[in-house]
């Protein structure tokens, strides 16, 4: 599994959510997404579940939060990208 990193930490709402939803649509079969953000994107989580994705939140290296997002049919990615 390869990580695809998306840094949304400098974007105004609702651009982070827009960009994540676009990125998820373009995700290759062997990829998962790592969203970097300055705030925890809570509105995103119910959408992810509806769209068939799982997520995990962790402390970011360069931003406050990293949300790891993968297809529910895929195994959970390892701890770091």
């Amino acid at each position, binding site marked *: 599994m390869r990580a695809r990193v998306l840094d949304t930490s400098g974007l105004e*709402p609702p651009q982070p*959510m827009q960009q994540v939803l676009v990125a998820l649509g373009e995700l290759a079969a062997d990829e998962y997404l790592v969203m970097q953000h300055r705030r925890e994107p809570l509105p995103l989580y119910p959408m992810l579940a509806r769209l068939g994705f799982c997520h995990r939140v962790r402390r970011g290296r360069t931003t406050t939060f990293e949300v790891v997002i993968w297809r529910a049919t895929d195994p959970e990615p390892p701890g770091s990208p």
Partner: protein
Amino acid sequence: MTDLPRPLGAAVAIENVGIGALGQDDLPPLHVPMRFFVTAALFGLLAGAVWLVHGEASFGDRYAPSMLAAVHLLTLGCYTMVMFGALFQVVPVLGGGGLPRARLVAALVQPTLAAGAASLAFGLSRGDRTALLLALLLLGIPFAVFVPAVGGNLLRRRSRALRPLRLAMLCFVLTVGLGATLAGALAWPAAGLPFRTVTNQHAAAGGLGFALLLIVGTSQQVVPMFHVTPTFSRAAMRFVAPGIAVGLGLQWLPGLSVVGTLVLVAAGLWHAGETLWLLAARRRRRKDPAVMAWQIGLASVAAALLLAALDLLGPEAPVQLALGARRELLLGLLFGFAGVGTIVSGMLTKIVPFLAFLHLQRRCLAARAPFPVMPTMEALLSRRMASLQVVSHVVAAALVVTATLRPGLGGLAGAATTAAFAVLGQNLVTAWARHRRAATAIDRAAGTAAAGA
């Protein structure tokens, strides 16, 4: 799932209880806040029309009937209307849950608040007892319905982010109580009521209490989120709102009014200064009408607070003598119209397209429509439209503030105010109509996608 270590998780819980934490299922329908916002624009337009017609007579005296009418059309019909409408969204966000029976509460509150504000303005402008009595009865409904609904949500949660809103609601109840006392005294003149003192307390509780505390509570969440600034300092989050409330309370205690004014002015200037500093330190420094509104609005609030601090110099100070009786009207309109009004206008340029966008996104997901159908926020309210809204309000505010010193400009200030609120109303209706068109396009696209599947 979350694997955050505990200390960070705890910090997150405090720091991120903001609009970023918006649970979309808690959002009331878009028409709930929008009907408040559009009604508010109409009341602003009416206030401008009153100034346009009465001009110099309005601005010549703080207690001129037409000025009293215009001020209440603005404060109650416009700003309270916007703040109530926004609270339907903000309280669920900060409180983490939706207001109970939001649609019913809105259906009761919006028309009675509008009718009550109109009746009060009419009663004040004509000295009409029946209209004043009707206003008291009508306004009793929104306050009896809305305050418990919002207050219940605010009291159930322990988030620090809610503290300014709790204090704001407390000040609101105080403002209404004092206002009802004044209206009652006008309808049935009673000896012994210190009219001037109670009027000043009513204005202070409404402006410095309700409005300023609401601005503090909202901006502490909204400014870092919408403008990508650093977050407010922990000290500001902790002390500014209580400082304003304590200062206001001390002002009314015999022998402590000087201390109260100092505390109040210091807390207000702290908030204005820190917000302006955060905006200057924002990561994306592109031109944004909402940022301009924050800057001009907060500078006006700061100037008004400094003007209020002139009280400390005593009535014989040269600047006090120079301003004379005009000081109170200048202070009120500098704070209320140039300060609060400009901030409200700027915030609406962000909140309205953002809420419309969130609702469309929810619709898109629910209907399983393709996301490319979604319009951008810019497509819902263009930057040009937003700029025109803020700039027209700033021009009106400059004229209104000048007219407090040169009442001959009152008519022109009224014309500018009418124009500014016409632009606001036009923008609100346009954004709402575009939202409806986009919703229809989403439904159509979802139908096409379903048929093709």
